Structure formats: C-alpha cells, structure tokens
C-alpha cells in the first residue's frame, strides 16, 4: 500500500452539541479515484469544509503529502496542492473564463507577488491557460464572462480552475449536480480524463458517476466512516443498502 497523499486522523467537528463529524480517519492514496457517498446529513459538506480549511476541526488532524495542514488557512492549502470545486457553481461572474484560468496559472507561478508584471507580459501563462481550456473544449467561450456561460460550461471551467493549480489532490464536490443531460457526457469524459497523478476525491450522489469512476468508495453515515471498499463490495453490502436508502419504497 502506498502512502496516502491526504489523510485525516480522528477528525471531529461539533456545532454546539451536534457532532457532525465523528472521529473520522480517511485515507486518500496518490492518484486515487475515491468517492465519498452517504445519505442526507451524513456530514459530507462539513468534511469538505474541514479538508479545505473553511472550517476548523474541533479535534483531530489533516495531513497532506506528509505535512500537517490542520492549522493552515484555506488559501495556503491550495499552495500545498489541495484544489477543490464547489457543490453549487461558484464562479467570478464578470471575469472571462480565460482571465480566471490565467489568474489560476499566475497564482501557481507566484506571479501575484510581482505587481509590476503586466498581464500582457504573461505569455507562457496565457498559453498554458489556453491549453487547459482547450482540453475541456472551452476555447470557444474563453472570452465570454463566466456569468454568461451555460451551467455545464461553468462547471467545466470550475474543474479547469482547480486543475490549473496543478494539485496533488482534487476535491470535486458534486461535480454533476445540476448539469443538464446533454452536457453531462462532456463533464463525465472530462473527469475520466483527469491526469492520473492527481488523486481525486469526489462527493457525489449520482450513482452513475460514482460507479463509473470510483475505484474506492467511502460511505459516510452520521459523520462516521460506515464502510469503505471497492465499488463491488459497497454495492453488495446489505448494511450500506439499508442505511443509505433509509427506507424502501413504502409499498
């Protein structure tokens, strides 16, 4: 077994008396395709927020690439190689898709520390951004403001933005949510073609996507890791079935 690129140790988060994440140990291997599923209120969003640094854990630790990042602010975790997308499309409405990706590339290359550099002088970065957009078939809309893009294109742009940071771990929060059927194939193939050296942790409830891509599945129930295994194991596990469904059709 390889060393995990991202893992948590005894992660807990409580809101008042309510414990949302409970003593969670999660291991994401390098290059993994890891899905996180679970019924409503299982604490998936909270976990994402704990991993990305939006929330601070009540106790426990988060390690990235052998480094304790528990205390790092969100932005600095991105510098260490943890990128994410959002559940509900989160974009810069008045920036063009191209500008946003250029920004992501420039940030990665630490050009934000150099305010004397003009954007028009960022030729290699521009070309790299263009390539990224090209890989996802977005060059046609590159110069349009993100707010005007179709929803599917926005979601793709979000993945491009996350990838442009060249992360070690990519966290996809319900990438397929709200994407219309005709666009979902483009999205699926984009996810399929994500670079193999990037570990992908995706939170999804679209089982089609989960079983198509996941090599490992963690079922989260009430803030705890309920089951973990390869898709076939999870699919055939009667406990998972019972817990995840909550109930069968009532008649």
């Amino acid at each position, binding site marked *: 077994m390889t060393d995990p690129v991202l893992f948590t140790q005894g992660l807990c988060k409580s809101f008042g008396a309510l414990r949302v994440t409970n003593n969670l140990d999660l291991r994401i291997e390098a290059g993994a395709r890891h899905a996180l599923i679970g*019924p409503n209120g299982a604490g998936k969003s909270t976990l994402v927020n704990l991993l990305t640094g939006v929330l601070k854990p009540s106790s426990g630790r988060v390690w990235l690439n052998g480094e304790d990042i528990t205390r790092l602010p969100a932005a600095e975790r991105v510098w260490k190689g943890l990128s994410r997308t959002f559940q509900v499309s989160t974009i810069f409405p008045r920036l063009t898709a191209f500008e946003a990706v250029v920004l992501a590339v420039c940030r990665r290359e630490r050009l934000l520390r150099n305010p004397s550099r003009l954007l028009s002088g960022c030729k290699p970065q521009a070309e790299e951004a263009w390539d990224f957009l090209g890989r996802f078939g977005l060059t046609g809309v590159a110069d349009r403001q993100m707010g005007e893009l179709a*929803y599917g294109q926005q979601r793709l742009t979000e993945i491009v933005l996350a990838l442009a940071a060249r992360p070690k771990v990519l966290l996809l929060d319900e990438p397929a949510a709200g994407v219309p059927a005709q666009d979902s194939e483009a999205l699926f193939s984009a996810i399929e073609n994500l670079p193999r050296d990037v570990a992908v942790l995706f939170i999804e*409830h679209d089982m089609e996507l989960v079983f198509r891509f996941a090599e490992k599945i963690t079922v989260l129930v009430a803030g705890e890791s309920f089951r973990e295994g390869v898709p076939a194991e999870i699919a055939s596990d009667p406990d998972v079935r019972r817990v995840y469904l909550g109930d069968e059709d009532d008649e």
Partner: protein
Amino acid sequence: MTSKRVLLHIESLCAGYGESIIIEDIGFSLAAGSSLALLGRNGVGKSTLFRTLLGHARQRSGVIRFNDRDISGTTPYARVWQGLGWVPQERLMFPSLTVAEHLAIADRKGAWTLDRVYGLFPRLKERQRNLGGQLSGGEQQMLAIARALMTNPTLLLLDEPLEGLAPIVVKEVGDCIRRLVEEEGQAIILVEQRVKFALRLTEAALVLDRGRVAYSGSSNDLLNNARLLDDLIGLRSGSNLQGQRSGGEVRREPDGITAGGQS
C-alpha cells in the same frame, strides 16, 4: 356528469433564471379537482416549473392560464390569491416566526381554517409556540403543507414533500397527503421521487426530460408500464444500486438566479 372545467392550462412555456433557459416549450392542462404527478430525473426542471407557475422564475414566453385567467406577469402574491399554494422542496421555514404565526400570516378565507389544519396535523398544534427553525424535519414538512393549506389553494403544488424524512415520518406525512387528496378532494401537482407513491395518488402524470415533456398521460398506465417508467425516469438506469436514487439525496435547486437551478 359533465366534463370537468380546466383549472390550469399551460402552453409552450419557456422559462429559467436570469439569462438561462431551463424549461422549454412545456404544455399541459389540468382539470379542476384532479391531481397530477410531475416526474422526471433530478434537475430536469420540475422545481423550476413550479417556480415559474408561482412567479418566482423568469417566464420567457408561453401562456399560463389559471382559473381561466392569464396569470403570467402577475405578482407572486396575486397568484396565491388566485388559488395557487406552494409547498417548496426546501420547506423554507421562517426562522423568526412561530408555528402559529406561520399559519396566521398565510390565512385566507376559505374552507381551510386553523382548526381544520390543526385537525389534520395535531402535532403542529402541540408545537404552535415553537419557532420554525426549532422543528424536526417531519414537522417542518407538515408546517409547510399546513401553511400552504391556510391560503386555501384551489391547486396545491407539492415539491418533494417526502424528501429527507425518516421512514416513520414518511408514512405519517404521506398519509396526510393521501387524506388531503382522497378525502378532501384537494387538487395537487406532486413532484416526488417516490414514483409509485406519486402515481398511485394521482390521476394524471407528466414526465419531464431536459426541460421538455417526455410523457403525458394517465398515472395508472405509467405505473403499470415498468419499461416505460424505466426509460422515462431512469429508475433502474446507470448503476447496480438499483432504485437507490429515489432514496438518495436530492439536489437543492437554489432560489434566485444562481445558475444552480439550471438543468
């Protein structure tokens, strides 16, 4: 018995949020006193259709006739006065209002009175002094339904009323809805992932796919045509965890113009 009056008539309706278009060219009619199941996969635009009927989404073109009156372009509250009631998927409790206040502000003259609503949901009466945010999921759902009933709707739009409820509560709320339809004769449009429940309860069914009408006909026919049901709603498509989508999470369609509501 004469043929029933048309309560709701929709014609080539096209709508969305902001610049986006989510439902395209939808049309159907609903007779007075009858009920309709509105089905389709997640994100096909069912909630958006509701929001368009209620005046919260942007209607691009088409006609919405309700009670023989064109209501497109009228304000959302005028539509409530016309007789449209709404039980939103997100329940949309008012955190700073008590249960009793939720019912009081929605109160309009008609057959549904506070006593009758409390009769239908005795649990709400017990909790009438509690704030909206302090209720359990099931109680919130009951309150959402009760609140809509207080407006005395001729047509009640129910958006996934059983979503995210514990099994026992599903039964309780489901029974209430059934009583509402079968005993009180309330006309409803029901969006529900529990397809069988929805189809058994209603007379007609409408299935949407990608913002368009994919099936329009009798609920019973659809219920008894497993193949068609599979094709239309994808109950068994995609995964080997068959049917689990119905119990899984449902995407929240955010209100407002965030693009998250697009299908």
